[in-house]
């Protein structure tokens, strides 16, 4: 235990160091933005650079989406684009730097004056708040508001839908029941977080965690004024601490929302946000094709969901150089893969798992996801490129050559003791057409190797209790489960721990589909938390990735990409790596309309 404590302390330092660099990185990137191609728009320019840098204020930014936000309540939102939009109205103690490239992954103080003061045992984090920070109604943001906001994460029966990470660090025994069942008169009963005064907040961790600050950067860690908390209904009128607030009554489910300037936000207190447009309209459309044609026509600015244009528009954009110059295909930070269940025979045998991986056709799986541009690059391992430790050249199963490897598959089958193949079930969510297509492609590719796969579609809405339930997986014999995963926070642990750590296998909602129970991997995760140097931590995550692939636990399909088009009038457009999409808060419009 003591060893672990020390290790985490070191990790804390590492993070702190990292953050300092981040701050610098941010400004460096800003300087650079005009550099490489003069900030002009070009195909994929926004991935590495700021396109059309500008400080011109005014105008209306029109964001459209084929998907409504899941929740506007910061503690309940889970869609990546909603987290991105959340930066418009919710500030956190720390937040991601506003810059393209790797530097965007670094955290900067936001509501906090500076990065936290971390105690010697690395278990206590103390933040000092900035002065002059206010909610949209003009009331000051105090440390108590932040604590209350964080406490809401505990009330996952009411405030459902969002990620629930903090309790594992701040209340691992589950003693706190959330603010709605709190006996404390001020509803501030969470013991591990204290607010000695209105501008100081202290966190006391049960065990050290190098990822703690990333958890504080999640929308659910933003401040919520207790008197305005309406519980489950808070999502219809959340308070704003950022430069924008919801125009009263503008949140219309299934239709959209309107952001207007928050009069009580002070630019001087906010080092991250630009707040250029006067208004931001978020419009939900039911017709993605209509949205594409409006994008091309320039009547709207951006697809807020950033999941890529439809097939027709894709063709048009890629064939027209003028349109293509305003398009990007960033990696979204998602991997698409199949989990190979170690609990289901004969996939409990590593050779049989290898046979599946070798027999799979990388190209047809890529095509099922939409091809190299709209779908993504052929996946080779289980760590996406936006996360430190990733190595795109690491290709243990030789997938990049693009063809199924029947010979290898047959060898593996022989080694597995199933030279003529075996029967297996592919479980796939019925509400994800691309996943169903992937399942079909996989099924077809496995056939020549003698592996007869049966596709079983299940209700995608019930995922947590179907593929997420190890008992169910075993009972139903789901040997292959199609899935996708994006990191909630951009570290190797944030990405891979739910997928590979044996201690992360709950009864329901399990994402370690393969049920990897490999002590070496678990130990490496712990070791990464102890590592002081980010580069070395990255090296450990690289090792974990290797271990996962060597165990043939997962069959990676593609590294997700999305072809998105942006209106040429947009200024300060760049892809933010933490979200895998354009950083909305930075955008402005050049014509001021």
């Amino acid at each position, binding site marked *: 235990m003591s060893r672990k404590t020390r290790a985490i302390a070191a990790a804390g330092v590492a993070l702190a160091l990292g953050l300092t660099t981040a701050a610098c990185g941010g400004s460096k990137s800003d300087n650079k933005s005009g550099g490489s191609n003069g900030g002009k728009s070009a195909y994929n320019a926004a991935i590495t650079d700021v396109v059309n840098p500008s400080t011109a204020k005014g105008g209306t930014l029109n964001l459209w989406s084929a998907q*409504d936000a*899941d*929740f506007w309540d910061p503690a*309940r939102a*889970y869609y990546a684009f909603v987290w991105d939009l959340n930066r418009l109205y919710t500030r956190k103690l720390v937040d991601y730097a506003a810059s393209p490239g790797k530097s965007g992954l670094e955290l900067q103080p936001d509501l906090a004056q500076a990065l936290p003061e971390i105690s010697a045992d690395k278990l206590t984090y103390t933040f000092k708040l900035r002065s002059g920070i206010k909610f949209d109604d003009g009331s000051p943001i105090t440390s108590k508001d932040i604590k209350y906001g964080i406490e809401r994460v505990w*009330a*996952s*029966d*009411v*405030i*459902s*839908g*969002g*990620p*629930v*990470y903090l309790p594992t660090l701040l209340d691992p025994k*589950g003693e706190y029941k959330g*603010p*709605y069942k709190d006996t404390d008169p001020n509803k501030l009963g969470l013991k591990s977080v204290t607010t000695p005064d209105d501008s100081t907040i202290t966190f006391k961790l049960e065990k050290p965690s190098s990822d703690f600050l990333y958890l504080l950067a999640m929308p659910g860690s933003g401040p919520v004024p207790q008197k305005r*908390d*309406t*519980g*489950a*209904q808070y*999502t219809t009128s959340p308070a704003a601490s950022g430069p924008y607030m919801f125009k009263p009554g503008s949140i*219309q*489910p*299934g*239709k959209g929302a309107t952001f207007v300037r928050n009069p009580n936000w002070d630019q001087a207190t906010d080092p991250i946000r630009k707040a250029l447009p006067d208004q931001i309209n978020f419009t939900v*459309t*039911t*017709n*993605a*094709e*209509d949205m594409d*044609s409006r994008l091309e026509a320039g009547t709207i600015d951006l697809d807020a969901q950033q999941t890529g244009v439809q097939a*027709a528009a894709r063709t048009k954009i890629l064939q027209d150089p003028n349109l293509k110059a305003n398009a990007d295909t960033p990696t979204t930070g998602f991997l698409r893969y199949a989990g190979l269940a170690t609990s289901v025979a004969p996939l409990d045998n590593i050779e049989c798992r290898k046979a599946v991986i070798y027999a799979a056709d990388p190209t047809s799986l890529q095509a099922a996801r939409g091809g190299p541009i709209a779908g993504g690059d052929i996946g080779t391992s289980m760590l996406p490129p936006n996360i430190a430790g990733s190595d795109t050249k690491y290709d243990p199963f030789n997938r990049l050559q693009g063809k199924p490897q029947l010979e290898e598959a047959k060898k593996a089958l022989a080694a597995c003791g199933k030279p003529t193949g075996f029967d297996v079930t592919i479980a796939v969510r*019925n*509400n994800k057409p691309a996943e169903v297509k992937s399942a079909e492609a996989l099924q077809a590719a496995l056939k020549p190797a003698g592996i007869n796969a049966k596709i079983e579609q299940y*209700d*995608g*809405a*019930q995922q*947590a*209790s*179907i593929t*997420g339930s190890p008992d169910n997986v075993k009972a139903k014999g789901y040997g292959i489960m199609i899935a996708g995963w994006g990191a*909630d926070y951009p570290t190797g642990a944030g990405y891979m721990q*739910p997928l590979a750590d044996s201690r992360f296998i*709950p*009864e*329901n*909602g399990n*994402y370690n589909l393969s049920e990897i129970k490999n002590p070496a991997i678990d130990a490496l995760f712990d070791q990464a938390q102890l590592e002081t140097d980010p580069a070395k931590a990255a090296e450990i995550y690289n090792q974990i990735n290797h271990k996962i692939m060597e165990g043939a636990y997962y069959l990676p399909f593609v590294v997700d990409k999305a072809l998105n088009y942006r209106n040429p009038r947009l200024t300060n457009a760049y892809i933010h790596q933490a979200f895998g999409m354009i950083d909305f808060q930075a955008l402005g419009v050049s014509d001021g309309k």
Partner: protein
Amino acid sequence: MLAYLIRRLINAVITLLVVTLVTFGIFFMVPKITGSDPALLYIGKTADAASIEGIRVKMGLNDPVLVQYGKFLQGLVAGRDYANGPDVTHCPAPCLGYSFKTEQEVTPLLLSDLPVTLSLAIGAAVLWLIMGVSTGVISALRRGSIVDRAVMTGALAGVSLPVYFTGLLSSAIFVYWLGWLPPSNYVPFLESPAEWFVQMLLPWITLAFLFAATYARLTRANMLETLGEDYIRTARAKGLGERTVIGKHALRSGLTPIVTIFGLDLGALLGGAVLTENVFNLRGLGYQALQAIRGNDLPVILGVTLIAAFFIVIANLIVDLVYGVIDPRVRLG
């Protein structure tokens, strides 16, 4: 007359009750049988047993089905209170509960979708009535002529074409190849009547085409039957001109059965033109219904089914009453 009306109303209410009961039964019992759990819909990526249980309690999923059904009915009639974390939210009658997925109150959610469905259904209905009835009448009057054959061939083709094909085909042609119309995207009438009209044009035509085909066949058959009636011969024997015979005597009774069918069709459509709305991405009740079904969002499914049944039952009622007015045999007989 009043007693008749009251009897019909009671019947309507019973029908609606049965619809809710059946829907409720299916969507509560089937998940139990197949072992899926509505509470899990509430949970994000990180579900733990305690919070799932918490949600079950909050949603009342641990109550016996009949108790849950009773609460649902109570909500419909008198409104219902929901524990909401810090305080209690009152969901006013008619309360259909809260969406499992978005936590929106279902009643206003569906009411906000209603204008789209209304626009679609009523616009299409006007169109198909005009198209179907006029071609059907012409066809009947020119029985056996080339016009008749053409109309009937077209009508038979029309009833054989599913909207999900004609919808795609027509948007491929008019939107993408010819570029005459924009891709459909509903614009509220009050916002811009002109845009609303342009946006709805293709859905209207597509939906109306199918119904017009049915109505042309129906009208023709009815008209032919009527034209063979003795009282038409009587009208002619009185020396009435063909215009009066057709326009007054034949149409009056030839079109009366159409009123029934029209009422019922319109009623059914108001509950959501599932296919058309989904083909044209119109966020109406049918679209909402499909989304809800795909997401197992029981309160929304219940709500849409109930509204759909409500419209059908009301349409039945209105048709019966209207029939009493236009057919004296029913009124006084």
